[in-house]
């Protein structure tokens, strides 16, 4: 097995050549524009969602977006090979913060998954996710094979499993679940034999049953049950699903107008500035608004995929793939949840949902992708 501690550039001599850096003209417009437009829409919707709350979340979210954009600019200017070289360090730091949160975490809504640093609280799991993605990309890129062997797959899974388990015992199941699309997307792209894929699928089912029985808390099981039979919990999750669907459906084609969503303004919608922000948007802007937002997400996803495809090396492809997989999962799961197709879990939607750590990580991810894109040219 190749050592993961050796740097990518030492394995791949081509990287020693200075990458040609063409700023601005080479910045991917699709990715940048979709991220910025979605953030702007997010700000407007967060304001509407919190109109009847004691606090208007708009100024704070604007701050997060601003900080996120600064982070994006910083990370774009760093060669992603440097990030990959640092990935082991970042990964260990990520693990350390996850262990720390187990002992010194601040509880918010059932799970103690926040770290308090001075006046700031942040979710280490969000940053651990990025570090894990970097390390897995570096490992898989270094293998340089068409299809992965079983031990190699195990190694990659182990890298992901460690932080995932730490997040799961916080317990933050939604956060832990986010590691699954990360490894799944990267492994699928890195190459898995079909037979193995089938075996894995079976394994997932078995593991799922195990988690259901031993790994889940009562309220989490209840949520899944509620999804299957909403009438079992009329004041809790069933109420949420129903109210969310009423909000979305009553928006019809053109919506009720900005700040006019009765479901949202009358407090029927729970977590309407975070997990159910899309329902607020759907109620006030209608199907046309939803189409616009989904269109922007499609633009974001296809732009990111294009960046991965034209990336300079395997490391670039895999890194963007990992980041994109997580974003896709957030987008798909949250939007499906809002229309009642999947159980309710605390999975927010990128750029729209309110949240400090989450917004910053979205911008960081986008920044890394743009950075990969800027360094795609190899002068041979």
């Amino acid at each position, binding site marked *: 097995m190749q050592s993961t501690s050796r740097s990518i550039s030492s394995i*791949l001599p081509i990287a020693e050549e200075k990458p040609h850096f063409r700023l601005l003209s080479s910045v991917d417009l699709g990715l940048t524009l979709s991220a910025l437009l979605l953030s702007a829409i997010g700000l407007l919707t967060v304001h509407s969602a919190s109109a009847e709350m004691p606090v208007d979340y708009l100024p704070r979210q604007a701050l997060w977006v601003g900080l996120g954009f600064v982070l994006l600019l910083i990370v774009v200017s760093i060669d992603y090979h440097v990030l990959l070289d640092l990935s082991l360090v970042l990964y260990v730091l990520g693990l350390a913060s996850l262990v720390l949160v187990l002992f010194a975490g601040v509880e918010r809504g059932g799970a103690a998954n926040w770290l308090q640093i001075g006046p700031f609280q942040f979710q280490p799991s969000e940053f651990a996710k990025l570090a894990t993605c970097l390390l897995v990309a570096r490992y898989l890129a270094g293998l340089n094979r068409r299809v992965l062997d079983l031990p190699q797959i195990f190694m990659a899974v182990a890298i992901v499993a460690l932080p995932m388990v730490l997040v799961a015992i916080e317990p933050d199941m939604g956060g832990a679940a986010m590691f699954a699309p990360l490894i799944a997307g990267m492994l699928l792209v890195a190459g898995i034999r079909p037979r193995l894929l089938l075996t894995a699928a079976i394994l997932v089912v078995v593991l799922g049953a195990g988690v259901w029985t031993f790994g889940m808390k009562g309220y989490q099981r209840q949520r899944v049950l509620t999804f299957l039979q909403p009438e079992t919990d009329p004041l809790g999750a069933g109420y949420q699903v129903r109210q969310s669907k009423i909000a979305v*459906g*009553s928006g*019809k084609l053109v919506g009720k107008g900005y700040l006019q969503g009765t479901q949202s303004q009358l407090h*029927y919608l729970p977590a309407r500035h975070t997990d159910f922000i899309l329902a607020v948007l*759907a109620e006030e802007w209608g199907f046309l608004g*939803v189409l616009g937002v*989904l269109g922007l997400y499609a633009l974001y996803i296809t732009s990111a995929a294009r960046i991965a495809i034209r990336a300079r090396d*395997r490391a670039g492809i895999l890194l963007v793939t990992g980041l994109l997989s997580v974003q896709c999962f957030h987008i798909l799961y949250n939007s499906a949840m809002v229309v009642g197709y999947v159980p309710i879990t605390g999975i927010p939607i990128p750029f729209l949902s309110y949240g400090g750590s989450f917004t910053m990580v979205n911008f960081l991810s986008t920044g890394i992708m743009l950075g990969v894109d800027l360094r795609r040219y190899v002068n041979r």
Partner: protein
Amino acid sequence: MQVVREHRDDLVFRLKLLSRLVTGLLVLIAVGFWFVQLVQGDHYRELAENNRLRKLPILAPRGLIYDRKGRLLVENIPSYNLMVDRSRSQNLPGALAFAAGVLGRPLPELQALVEGYAAIPDFKPVLLAENLSLSQVSRIGVAGLEFPEFEVEVQHLRLYRHREQTAHLLGYLGEATEKEIAASDGLYEPGDLVGKKGIEQTYDRILRGKDGERAVVVDSRGRLLDDYGRREAVPGRNLKLTIDLDLQQEAARWLTGPEKVGSIVAMDPRNGEVLALVSSPSFNPNLFARRLQKKDWEALIEDPNHPLQNRAIQNTYSPGSTFKIVMATAGLTEGLVNEHTSTSCGGGASFYGRYFRCWRKGGHGTLNARGALKNSCDVYFYSLGQRMGIERIAQFSRLLGLGSLTGIDIEGEKRGLVPDPEWALKVRGMKWYPGETISVSIGQGPVLMTPLQMAEMTAIVANGGYKVIPHLIKDAEMPEPERVALDENAIRIVHEGLWAVVNEPGGTAYNSARVPGAEMAGKTGTVQVIGQSSRLDAKALPFKFRDHAWFTSFAPAQNPEIVISVFAEHGGSGSRSAAPIAQALHAKYFKVDLQHPADR
């Protein structure tokens, strides 16, 4: 240079596949939105507009408050408010006309009211009228089909049974301010009623309980169709106070009426239980239960006697001659005087080049400590004060609870003032003059205390030197009282002197405070409001120029179980206006029938 060929074509191929899969899923979700918003859109729009699943709060009943004998002081009564949901209205003018008829209010008034709500979204019910009678509620209920915009909202109001008599003690409820919400750790939400002042404020968290919730299905006219689920409310806990309602009411009655301004505190010196706490003038707390009328509020704010102020803890006054209790206790404990040390009073004496008069022109002759207390001789205490010095006076004042909070469990308490040279320089910016010490010796200088501190000081002397903490909750677990370093013999002599004030002919309160069989001990105090030169009969002076009157007392003298301190602002002399009140209250407490009730 050797170039390693990377395997990347397979990666790109698989990535393209995956990306198509995701795009496909995104389209599928878009179809899902299309289905919910366009195919089922009308259905959900109707649900959203009319047939909503509503979450209604189940209000937790607020805890009741009882006196020490289990008599109810505060209860909750239902009150009905008429609300209008304009979004459900088909004929708003007609509905308003109907409401005007039912309520017996002019139509233009209601129309103006509704127009005032223009900025609030239609679908939010707005208040039309408060405090409907049951017959009004039923008439509106019957017309529900014709006028679907009306909703009757039930609210629980606090009813303070004894109104003004317990107002400062119990406090009242009001909407939570932004500051209170921010400080409550998520307990309060905007619009919540929270305790303001008194017991309601201090024990709000215990009294309020936790609201429950129920979800109901309502039809397009807002009528309840079905229960969907519920979480029961947790009722607030009841409180039992240390207050004795009989005593509280009797005390309040004595301070009710024009020119009756002041405060009365009664407490048990053995444990600090407050038996009565009255401040006058008072206010009707039931006015605060509903939206307070502007004129009522203005009347309260503009009243020169500030009825909202709790004089028992928030106002500080000169103690006058009651301060001689502090002086005698200090002098005897310090050994500056003993039981037999006597001073001759010739109606006044010179100190530091100034002549200080005794209140009795002819003088008292030769007096010891006991006699000096009994006759309230100024010259004895001038001379004692001169020997003691201001530092030691301040030290003993503090030992007896002056200058610091008593720690009673209602908010707003004032510290009062124990003057000393350091204070004079720091706060007043002027050095302390020896002559001031002489004035302080009879409680006339800058020294200030609240009526509650007066009761506390009296209690410490009465119980033999234990600093009990005044409190209002019966059976509260209180810390062991702090022991105050007072000489036992000193306390005995002071007790005798105070007993003589009331029970021996010639005592300053012999004619006005004696309760046969109650063995009461006490001390009068009169605080000059204007100079002494123009002494006239109290009643002949305008109210605001009359002296303040104090009387502080305990009984039975041998084994005190009650302390009563009375302060009558501009009441005239302590013996004539404050002492009879204490007399009546002791009589009430010991169930003694006074055959010749004092002149009320």
